[in-house]
């Protein structure tokens, strides 16, 4: 139980529409899972439910922590959400610094390393509002991995990335998995990440079904 992510009969309605419908999942730690589906199929909502960002009917237990009961977020979680932009007026390093101060677990060295891993320059003093879409996505990935999380929830992480950056992303994911991190990736660009995943799921109309590999 302490090493699993468990969803039991999870449902969510928004404006009368069921965006998550009786989802049951049991995921082991230390693996990569892919959730694929069209825009609006419910992938994002599913990740947000696991992240504790929305209140749902049913039970969400992440590594032994019952999120619905405790109104909490999973411990040691790294997250990429659709709204990738952080604080546009600050540099990449300042953005990471602001976030890192909340948990106060890492120092400048780890932040620099995270930026270098995703291919950004820690010395770049430009405010991130001048960044391209791809650079912002890389920064979002850097903030997600910088504290060596136990769980990574990534929503459309390859949006705006070029081929080289997607390749780099795959490499980082493999490194994170080897470290023992559990990774959940929701995307409509299946080809970018399918090869990485131990198990893949098809999300459609709020329902989640495992894909059987041939």
């Amino acid at each position, binding site marked *: 139980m302490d090493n699993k992510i468990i969803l039991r009969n999870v449902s969510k309605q*928004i404006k009368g529409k069921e965006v998550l419908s009786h989802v049951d999942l049991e995921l082991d730690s230390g693996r990569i899972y892919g959730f694929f589906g069209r825009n609006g199929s419910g992938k994002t909502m599913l990740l947000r439910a696991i*992240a*504790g*960002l*929305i*209140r749902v009917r049913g039970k969400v237990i992440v590594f032994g922590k019952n999120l619905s009961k*405790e*109104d*909490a*977020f*999973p*411990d040691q*979680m790294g*997250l990429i*959400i659709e*709204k990738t932009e*952080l*604080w546009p*007026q*600050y540099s990449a390093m300042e953005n990471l610094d*602001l*976030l890192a*101060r*909340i*948990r106060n677990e890492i120092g400048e060295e780890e932040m620099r390393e995270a930026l270098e891993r995703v291919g950004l320059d820690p010395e770049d003093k430009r405010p991130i509002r001048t960044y391209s879409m791809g650079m912002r996505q890389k920064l979002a990935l850097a*903030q997600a991995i910088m504290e060596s999380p136990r769980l990574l929830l990534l929503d459309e992480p390859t949006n705006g990335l070029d081929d080289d950056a997607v390749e780099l992303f795959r490499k980082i994911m493999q490194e994170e998995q080897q470290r023992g991190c559990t990774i959940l990736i929701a995307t409509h660009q299946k080809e970018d990440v399918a090869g990485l995943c131990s198990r893949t799921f098809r999300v459609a109309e709020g329902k989640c079904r495992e894909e059987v590999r041939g």
Partner: protein
Amino acid sequence: MKKHMAFPLRAKDLWLICGVYALYLIILQLSSPRDIGLRYGISGALHIILLLGFLVFQDSRNRLFSHEYSLVRFGSRKAFRRARNVSLLAETLIYWLPHCVFLLTAGITVRKDAGTVIVLTFFWLLDLILLAVMMSAADMLLFRRHGSALLFGLLLSLDYLQAMEMLFSIDFSLFYGTSLRLFHKGTVTAQDLILAAVCLAIKAGLAFWLQRLPEGGQRKRLAPWLRSSLRRVWIGFPLGAILALWWNRYSPGSLEGLWLLSFGMPIAEDLSGFLMILVNTLPFLMACFLFVADQSNDRTAVNILSVVREGTRRIWWRRRQLLLLVSGAGYALMILLGETITGYLFGLRSMNIGRAAAILRDLLCTKAAVGFVLLSASSILCLLLDARLVFLLVSAISMGAQLLAFGPRTAFTTAALRILLPCRASLLLHEEPAAMLDFSAWFYRGIDGLHPEMTAVYSGICALILFGVGLKLADSADFL
């Protein structure tokens, strides 16, 4: 203090605080020593500067907390709220500390009654802390850039008017008045304390309730164009209205006088008149510009468009123009309604409802028409030209035309002013002020025989012509 703040103060925050207190000192030096509030370090001008600064400061601090990347790092919503509240306390104290020190020293020096002054300052600080908590909670609810600053800016603006009993003849205002009134009176009776305590309790209840509501994403959101408009209203309505009242030291007594102010027209032809134009016209134009620029800058739509057929492109363009015009008109109405309703409420205090309603109708027709034409023109121009250029152009025309009304009246200037709708009221003011005061329903009769309703029709025709010209230009221009 530092260890209580989840996020450290940035250089930008410190510069803001320094800037606000530099202004504070300048106003203190310039203000009249007869001002009773000043003896305690409080006056209308000081208060506005400090509160506006505080809203900006809090808005900047709230930005750090209102991102979901921050939220999840706190571990739970409870921990997040606790950290935010502690941080809010520290931020409020840091921002208001210099002011409180002044309040205490000035108050004790003047009254030589440390107890009363300390009680007053204590209430004052509690007020501000609750305001900060409410603002932060609203920010989480809205999850929108500057959302709570706008909301509370608007609330405080209205509360300020009520504190001066300009809205209703009741000695009550929620945010602004209690502590300020206590300071102005200089003494504290049991009744004052009860009233202050009731206000504090209401605010504490509100703050608690707001913090309990689920944060953004699950709340019902407004239509995008309306959200955008509401954001801009902050620039147009409260700033213009409050600064206008403040600059002119306007005391309500004449409805027409107030509405002239809301048109950006001076009471007297001197420097304060010029300032009035600046204060009232610029925010409105700026608001129009920002709104239109916001609406026209839809690059995604343009990109999608570049791959579709030529015929579809034209249809899209026409639809988009129509959307711009409709949303622009809606937006103009919101600003103008805000201004006019303030005027109406003022007016109700000095004249009967029927008369005030008649003038309100005239003003709404005229002001909406003016706003509609301005926005139609600038939205079309913004799509064809550089948005900044259009802003400069529209500002220059509007300001120039209003200033034209001050100069010697020749046949040319009179003709020019007749064409420029925003200046028609200025023209009347300078040519036939008496006609306006006596026959406000015939507001523009002295100029060209048009009734307000006809002005609206005339403006509508102008807008249609502009729309047609814009479409024609757009069809031939290679702007996509």
